[in-house]
């Protein structure tokens, strides 16, 4: 669906040349919700702008839905061709970017006007979209009369007006409160399921990735440092930055801070972090081991995440008791689909 090969983009600024996007390769499948996460300055916003050529790449290859958008060794879209291709790629933004002097109707109708469609066709399509986003009663409102979440809904409807196959979302929930974020994310998920639209999401919040993405790329200094299924990444993160992002989205991530503040003492036993995969979450494994090995488990932190692919549990606990029994316990856990990390 979306192929990105060896994509590069540099910017010149006062301090010299900055590699905003460095040798990025990503393959996004049809109908997938793909996340790209990174801190600000990681190059993720530049990357998404390269996809519809709002920024021009330095070198590499981009194709979307079988159409070559950019190829440094071949043909690159320009002028009218580019404008037509952009109609097949919707985009939503952090700051909504609606026209303040146009009503909700006219904002959504923007991409439909001057395309040879009749007034009636446009009106029907806009109403269809309003129904999809659940704002039929706001048809004659101006953006200044809407809440942030409603504005983003209108922006989504506008982006979908010309039936794009791809929706690019650039930090679309970053300016919203938690409730509005939640509702926008579920709307995106619903659109993905209903319309089969491929969605690319740029964010700095792991909770966004966790809630709706199938796969994710982690970006740092312009490069993709880790990529994979969201479930796999959460269950088994490799790079420090990925771990940091995951910790930021889970109560279990508080562990480091608690340890720093000496709020947990593991003098009585071993402090361990257990990660339960989707095959282990449902089992009564904790009571089983305390019965079987006669050890005590003191649960410090615990969390269950419902990812798209399944549930993922994590727990920080202090296992205390006879040294040999503790060792046996940990071996047993490791053999029953639980990832064990001894912290202290």
């Amino acid at each position, binding site marked *: 669906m979306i192929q990105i090969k060896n994509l590069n983009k540099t910017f010149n600024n006062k301090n010299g040349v900055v590699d905003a996007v460095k040798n990025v390769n990503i393959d996004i499948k049809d109908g997938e919700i793909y996340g790209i996460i990174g801190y600000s300055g990681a190059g993720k916003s530049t990357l998404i702008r390269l996809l*519809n050529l*709002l920024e021009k790449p330095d070198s590499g290859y981009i194709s979307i839905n079988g159409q070559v958008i950019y190829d440094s060794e071949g043909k690159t879209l320009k*002028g*009218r061709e580019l*404008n*037509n*291709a*952009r*109609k097949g*790629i*919707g*985009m939503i*933004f952090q*700051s909504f*970017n*609606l*026209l*303040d*002097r*146009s*009503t909700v*109707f006219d904002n959504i109708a*923007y*991409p439909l006007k*001057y395309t040879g469609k009749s007034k009636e066709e446009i*009106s029907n399509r*806009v109403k269809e979209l309003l129904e999809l986003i659940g704002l039929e009663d706001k*048809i*004659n409102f*101006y*953006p*200044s009369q809407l809440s942030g979440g409603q504005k983003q809904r209108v*922006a989504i409807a*506008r*982006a979908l007006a*010309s039936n794009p196959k791809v929706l*690019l979302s650039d930090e679309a929930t970053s300016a919203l409160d938690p409730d509005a974020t939640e509702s926008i994310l579920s709307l995106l998920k619903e659109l993905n399921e209903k319309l089969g639209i491929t969605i690319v999401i740029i964010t700095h919040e792991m909770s966004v990735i966790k809630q709706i993405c199938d796969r994710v790329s982690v970006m740092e200094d312009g490069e993709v440092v880790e990529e994979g299924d969201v479930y796999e990444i959460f269950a088994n993160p490799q790079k420090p930055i990925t771990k940091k992002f995951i910790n930021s989205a889970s109560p279990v991530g508080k562990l480091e801070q608690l340890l720093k503040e000496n709020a947990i003492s593991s003098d009585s036993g071993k402090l361990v972090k257990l990660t339960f995969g989707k095959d282990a979450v449902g089992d009564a494994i904790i009571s089983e081991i305390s019965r079987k090995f006669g050890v005590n488990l003191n649960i410090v932190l615990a969390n269950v995440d419902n990812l798209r692919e399944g549930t993922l549990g994590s727990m920080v606990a202090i296992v205390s008791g006879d040294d040999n029994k503790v060792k046996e316990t940990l071996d047993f856990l490791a053999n029953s689909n639980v990832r064990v990390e001894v912290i202290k």
Partner: protein
Amino acid sequence: MEWIKSIAPNLAAYFKNFVESIEQTYQMLFWSGIISFVIGLFFGVILIVTKKDGIKPNAVIFHILDKIVSFFRAIPFLILLIFLIPLTRSIVGTAIGVKGAILPLVFGCVPFFTRQVQAALSRVDPGKIEAAKSMGSGTIGIIFRVYLHEAVPDLIRVTVITAISLIGLTTMAGAVGAGGLGAFAINFGQGLNHTDIIYVCVALLLIVVLLLQGIGDALAKNTTNKSLIRKKHK
């Protein structure tokens, strides 16, 4: 007529000239205003579109136009009037009267208005431009459907500012032979030492400026975050 005689006897004596001068000022204002509006808007748009990170960057066009605008902005109007006399003569046929004043007025007004339009358009959120691009809008589409559309309240404000400064310019043109209220105030008020004529001219100009400002402010307010005429969809 009687009450005019009682409060401004000299004005009453020259009332015909007064009315004539109002008409001249009005004509200068109207014609140079319309021409300047069209040209200034066009130049302002060109500057915004062709600037370095504009929607159609073109360094050559931008820099040439930018320098021309700066050049004419730098010349005081009175000097510009004299400087342009040969050009005015060759184009209009005369350098005096209302006809001769319009060309220099346009030269004096356009650079000012161009800068004002440029400033108004550059206040349009670049995010809106980016969104329009992402929806496949071309250069013309973005100019009319985003820049000019979203900047309407600001454009109204700068038009009023420019119109008011243009009134000032017309009186200066009057001083060098274009007629109008400026010439009337100088020739009959100052020249014949009739202070009542000067007072009336000041009062009249004050009313016109306040009126313009009032209408402009109301229009700008009614076009901020909404369109002036609201179409309802069922």
